[in-house]
């Protein structure tokens, strides 16, 4: 039995400690917002926060999360109103939407660590997340908008 906290809720999981966190979240706990894209830490669709850091849950073993704090897209905000979520909606960022949980979780760490990211900072932080629909231009703008929102600046979608 492995104990971990996901979105402030404690879970006791009976699973192989070698099982990637992604499948614990999706198939055992039942939180499906975190997506499976590649299984080898190449696409970022499975990005979650482990003790506040963005990790690829498809290659993060359950044993590494034991006793730790995990936040998934379902826990990013209570009402879908994190500045990034609002900026994503205002800019119509998602297309198919499958990669966007991972994009948002990567962007959330960037914005927490760097409240005023440059385009280069965004490149550095977001190039691990693939979007096959090619929403990069809007992701970039939405991150800038969210940064402005955090600082209390009104943003036009």
């Amino acid at each position, binding site marked *: 039995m492995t104990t971990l906290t996901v979105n402030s809720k404690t879970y006791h999981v009976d*699973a*192989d400690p070698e*099982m990637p966190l992604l*499948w614990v979240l*999706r*198939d*055992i706990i*039942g*939180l*499906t*917002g*975190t*997506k*499976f*894209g*590649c*299984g*080898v830490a*190449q*696409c970022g*669709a499975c990005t979650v926060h482990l003790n506040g850091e963005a990790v690829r849950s498809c290659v993060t073993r359950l044993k590494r999360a034991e006793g730790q704090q995990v936040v998934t*897209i*379902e826990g*990013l*905000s209570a009402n*879908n109103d994190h500045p*990034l*979520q609002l900026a*994503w*909606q*205002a800019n*119509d*960022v*998602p*297309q*198919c*939407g*499958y990669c*966007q*949980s991972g994009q*948002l979780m990567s962007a959330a760490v960037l914005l927490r660590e760097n409240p005023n990211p440059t385009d280069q900072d*965004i*490149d*550095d932080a*977001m*190039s*691990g*997340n*693939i*979007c*096959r*629909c*090619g*929403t*990069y*231009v*809007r*992701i*970039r703008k939405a991150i800038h908008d969210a940064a402005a929102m955090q600082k209390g600046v009104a943003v036009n*979608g």
Partner: protein
Amino acid sequence: MVEQEISRRNFLKAGALLSGGLLISFTIPQVGGRLGKSIIPGIEGGFTPNAFLNIQPDNKITIILSHTEMGQGIWTTLPMLIAEELDADWKNITVEHAPAGKPWNHTTYGIQITGGSSTTWSEFDRYRKAGAAARILLTQAAANRWRVTPDKVKTANGLAILGDTKLSYGELATEAALLPEPKEIPLRAATDWKYVGKGKRRLDAPAKTNGSARFGMDMQLPGMLIAVVAHSPVFGGKVLSFNATRAKAVKGVKQVVQIPTGVAVLADNYWSANEGKKLLNIIWNEGEGANLNTASQMAAYKKLASTNGLPAQKQGDLTAGFAGAAKIIEAEYVFPYLAHAPMEPLNCTVKITGDSCEIWSGTQLPGVDRDNAARILGMKSENVTLNVPFLGGGFGRRATMASDFVSEAVQIAKASHQTVKMIWSREDDMKGGYYRPAYVHKLRIGTDADGMPVAWQHNIAGQSIMAGTPMAAGIKDGIDDSSVEGVKDSPYLKAVPAHYVGLHTTKEVVPVLWYRSVGNTHTGFVMETIIDELATNAGKDPLEYRRKLLKDSPRHLAALNLAAEKAGWGKKLPAGHYHGIAVHEAFKSYVAEVAEISLEGGKLKVHKVTCAIDLGLAVNPDGVRAQMESGIIFGLTMALYGELSIENGRLQQNNFYDYKIARMNEAPQIDVHIVDSKEEMGGAGEPCVPPLAPALCNAIFAATGKRIYDLPLMNHNFITA
């Protein structure tokens, strides 16, 4: 098969979506079933004037999509069309995909399909009429209440209004449901449009920012097992033997079953199933597929394309044309197989109960998939329900006439007697076939003293995506139009007095399929790079040269001129920056793109892409801009990295580390402009793809003097940034 027979005629229609240019026949909304059993499964009560919407007494409006949302934005655009005529309160609208069913067949292609960049133009009348019919009945219901004639009743924002008196649509729903269907359904004039041409924000964005959007991958059913499949390493291979003992010993693994396409491992979670899959010790009969090698395949294609193939388009006397030419230019182009690689790996959930079956699949072909499932199960089609969750990308891959991944999941459920969610790994998805075919083009062009083309011999070798499928009925005189579209109908060729377009259709074990913009992925590249080369040969500016040849193609010109103007074509660029341009028509839309690049120290950087599209009316302009952005990145991936290769029948690529996708750091600034156009409506999802690669390669020529005749660019030793 009772309800949705896949007739030859329907497949002809489906095949026609590849070639374009067919008659458009709109059907009126399916009115009926307003009393008694709902015609929309899962929706009971309220007012259902047709198969496309339902209004409940609490004012909730559910709009049913005949097409499937895979990113292209129709979750918002189709409701806009209904709301335009219904005067609906936008905030009361919720959207659902239609299940498989005849009422939602394509207005032009006759089967239920999302493809060919056709959703908006094909539904433009039907969805507006669906809304208008509802408003007529709601207005009548209000008039009856108020004992006035309907012309006295106004509607706005979900309300029927008479002076100061108002009734909500919900309050009128039950009465409206009892009224006879309207005889005539007039539509509003464009000058009265509130939504069309103006646009709304995406209705699916909130669910796609908090993890609540449900994709096929997210299906969860009581007692459901996760299934993975070990597939043959070679296309067409069959299982000779396997040993399930070690797989079954993995904690969580419940069952191992053989199916026609391999061996399935069922477990209570994906990871356990996948661990079990590694332990099956399968011996394969690889068959003839093991002989396939990309190098020898392409060598054979080059040889083929050196001779005239079956005629797809011809005009004038080639021999005389070449004899009179001042100069002859020859070129050979090579294109590899490509995988669609949608972000959501292919998957399908199947639950069989007695003599019925329910399926959840993110598919572009719900009706065909349901009928194929019914055939496998020996059931009637009406006993099979197919539900469509969100699609995590499609690009054509989720539309196979053989229903490959749906059929496989059904086979697993049938063999195991379990409710299963089958999940393909990224590697399964990559190696699973249904690729954009590999092609070779060989061109011989004669130009006159002014450098204008006077003779054009153009032969193409590659597989047909229609051959071997029910769509083969659409192949005429040996020509699968999807192999030659973009060349045979090129506006440039029309201006060439003597020309011949020939096709050699090859056969391989590799399954092939339509891929975002289909034949235009390669034909657009060839035409737009060779035209650039001809311009250089003529000593002319590439834009001016195109304008001269396109003088009778006003929509090409409109897009070309707008993109050139907005990009500042011919004006001074920052030091070390170069422009390349391309224009191409696909799916009835005309798109021009200008790429601005630099190549400092061999490092290729795409700084900016300026795009202009003439698609006629843009119903949701920002949605069109989003599709242009999307297609430009898709085209960039194809140009930089897109390549599958095969050795001894084995696909050499595995995952995103060796089949790379353009990332954030490679995304250029994108500037999209929509031509103000009153012309026939075209598509948006695909026409944005073809111009990117040629515009980019023409810019590389401007920078280096080097012409590119084969993609991807990573094989040309450019360092990408």
